[in-house]
């Protein structure tokens, strides 16, 4: 996996990557960039690719070779002049930034340039982010920094104004579908998975065990109860769904899956759901029925409840409580 960074960057973001290769060639690289975009849109790979391009001793067609000792060292996070910072736990701490800053002030060990990559920059504490400001604004010497963040709104505005912001478009759906299908993911799951994440690695991890598939099945059953207004939906959570949801990650995934399910309903209601985008192909009949039976306001009210779940999660409400409450509310809305 480590050896195809350039490849990944090229397939995921061909234009942006080519752009940067060009910048390096013309020596027009600025000193600070902020890469924004959803997870898995290739920000890290592009940043690494640029670093490799800067150090590679054997550039081919304007692209780093990925084989020379410099490239290999960068890919193994071993290069002294390429400083990579990732959050330590929940946030990037001031201590970590101190280390980065002390690196900033030192001149390069081997060559004449240094590269800094800070991924998940939105997780910097306020103190950490503020202390970076001056270094990002006018670094001494030949320095390039890449900040990577999922959401540009979470990054300090004073940082944004000091960087060039590059927005990474999400991967095109077709590309992902094709890749997933070729790697053996069941077609009935592909759309749902894509709607939840953009990261191919994550999807591949999911498809290794049958957790995802069985959760999808259970949710379909749950929804069938809901459409019929059957109160069985409530005990069903305790009996079948909860045993599968074993950790916080999975809780989030289940919430996303539920959202996608009702998204299907909304789109069916307005006829914008083309057949190749259906996320739950197993229960087409039920979603159609739901779209007919529930009126616009009901569906919106349900979606509001679903969207509220993230808030409850954030304040550590018990997960089972959250989805049971949700189920009851949806049943009530459906009958009103």
């Amino acid at each position, binding site marked *: 996996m480590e050896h195809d960074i350039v490849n990944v960057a090229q397939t995921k973001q061909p234009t942006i990557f080519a752009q940067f290769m060009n910048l390096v060639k013309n020596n*027009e690289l600025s000193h600070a960039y902020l890469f924004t975009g959803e997870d898995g849109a290739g920000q890290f790979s592009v940043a690494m690719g640029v670093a490799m391009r800067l150090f590679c001793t054997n550039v081919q067609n304007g692209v780093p070779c990925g084989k020379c000792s410099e490239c290999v060292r960068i890919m193994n996070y071993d290069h002294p002049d390429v400083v990579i910072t990732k959050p330590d736990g929940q946030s990037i701490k001031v201590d970590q930034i101190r280390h980065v800053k002390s690196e900033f002030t030192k001149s390069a060990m081997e060559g004449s*340039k240094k590269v800094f990559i800070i991924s998940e920059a939105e997780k910097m504490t306020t103190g950490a982010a503020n202390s970076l400001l001056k270094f990002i604004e006018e670094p001494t010497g030949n320095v390039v920094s890449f900040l990577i963040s999922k959401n540009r709104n979470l990054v300090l505005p004073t940082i944004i*104004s000091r960087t060039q912001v590059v927005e990474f478009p999400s991967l095109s759906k077709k590309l992902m579908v094709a890749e997933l299908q070729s790697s053996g993911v069941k077609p009935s799951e592909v759309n749902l998975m894509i709607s939840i994440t953009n990261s191919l690695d994550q999807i591949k991890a999911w498809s290794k065990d049958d957790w995802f598939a069985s959760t999808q099945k259970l949710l379909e059953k749950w929804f069938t109860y809901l459409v019929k207004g059957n109160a069985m939906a409530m005990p069903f959570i305790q009996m079948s769904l909860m045993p599968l949801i074993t950790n916080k990650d999975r809780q989030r995934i289940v919430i996303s899956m539920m959202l996608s399910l009702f998204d299907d309903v909304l789109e069916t209601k307005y006829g914008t759901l083309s057949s190749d985008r259906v996320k739950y192909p197993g229960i087409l009949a039920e979603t159609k029925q739901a779209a007919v039976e529930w009126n*616009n306001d009901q569906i919106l009210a349900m979606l*509001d409840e679903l969207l509220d779940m993230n808030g409850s999660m954030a304040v550590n409400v018990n997960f089972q409580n959250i989805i049971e409450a949700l189920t009851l509310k949806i049943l009530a809305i459906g009958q009103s």
Partner: protein
Amino acid sequence: MSYQALYRVWRPQRFDEIVGQSIITRTLKNALITKQTSHAYLFTGPRGTGKTSAAKIFAKAVNCHYLKDGEPCNQCETCKAINEGSLNDVIEIDAASNNGVEEIRDIRDKAKYAPTQADYKVYIIDEVHMLSTGAFNALLKTLEEPPANVIFILATTEPHKIPATIISRTQKFDFKRIKPQDILERMEYILDQKKVEYDDKALKLIAKAAEGGMRDALSILDQAMSYGDNKITYENALLVTGSVTNELLTTYIEQVVNKDTKSALITIQKILDEGKDASRFIEDLTSYCQDILLYQQDPGIVEEMELGIIDDKFKKLSGQISDQEIYQIINELNDISNSLRYTAHPDVYLEVLTVKITHLDDAPKPKAAGTAAPQPAPQTTVTPQVTTEIQQLTQEVAKLKSELDTLKQAPTTETTTISTPEPAKPSVDAHTMDNHIELAKIYPILGKATRKQLNQFKEVWPDLMKALSVTQRAVMHVSSPVAASAGGVIVAFEYPFLYQKAQGDTDLKDALENNLDRIVGKAPQIVFVPENQWPDIRKEYLTNHKDKLKKAVSKNTENADPKVDSADDEPDNPTEGDPESQPVVKKAAEIFGTDILDIKDD
């Protein structure tokens, strides 16, 4: 030398070059010319408005011996040294990373020594809002009376985090956001100097996206330049700013106005599929709505703000959409933009938003929806609907007047002892075994009765019961309040004999009134009625007081008559179609509450 970002290359070196802050630069220059410089300055303002630049220029100017009109020469040794950052006496400190008391102590100690090369020792403390409280306080004394020839310049984007004691010791300058027009001119100047081709529209877009920060503008410009091989095109500017094209926005709003949910949803999907940032889209949408709103008031403002980018579709749209709709849309957008910050599902939010704003009219005013959408009803002409309503109303007035006349004659035959006309008394008396029901007390209470009061009494009723003695409680056990006003409460009894018992029991009444006084803080008059007669009394009251209520109606309609041609009055007039708005019904609803009211049309 590696490539330097535009904002570093073009950092202003003279006060004149600072854009859009003429008041501040003139003040500083005058102070320099008259040698009235202070020892401490605080520069505040949004990012990229020139705070740090002004501080650096000021540091040069106080030390430059060849000052010309308050501008540093940028030629002499000191100026050059400061530009290079090699002068020991101009000390730039990043408060964000030196935010402890220790660092400030260090400054304090070193400030004592006289400057080595230049005339003044200048401390520029940037991002000063990050100093800890201890550090701020450690600085106070030094800041108030620093040694001779020391100047402090504090710069920050967040002045509210600075203690008042610091602010009062400094001269404070508020840097304003730079106007798009000024940013535009500066960018044009830079590009002309660099001999880069540019598209006018692209620069306008960048100037707008920069939100008043020059550094933002130059960063974006830099990026757009590197995207397009030293040419700035509109497409590149769009790409770099991540803005949704105006065309897409216009289409989307058009679809929203036309209530075309399906196509609007498809547009949203298209926008998201292109990898546009959802919150950016919401921002763009909000500012578009804002523009429409402003354009409706004064086209001139928008033309100036938008730097003249206004197309025909925009003009058409702003004529089509009512301001009420815009308010509602903006409200929804606000709600969404808050939620969007913390979600991983922007797509669902946007879809929900779309459905909501395409269904806006349905919820608040179901009746108007048919006529209001998609084109708002013209405001001055009389629609057929209004004329028929007026006809109905005049008929009603005539009818009411005749009824009023008959009613006026009625009371003369059946006078009652008490204030209100009350032909009902005999009829009530007829079937209440000779229980004297205190109608005289009941009617005034009913006249002012509100549901709210009743609910209040119902709430305290159990408490009140507990406060009574056992025998009293036994009597009151089957009673409940049925109507109440601020001054009195009517209590109905399930069994007539208990009612009689209670009626004769003055102790009980006293106890009730005393306890009520204790619980709710007032002693309302308490009136008892037997429950089997309550509906009759109520009905009687309503029919007897109809004339009063109807007077109110006729007043309304008469008032409306002279200016029927203005449609503004429409909502005031009661309409036949809606029974809930008739005054009699309204009054009834007021007394008994809408939840128990069943309106029958007969």
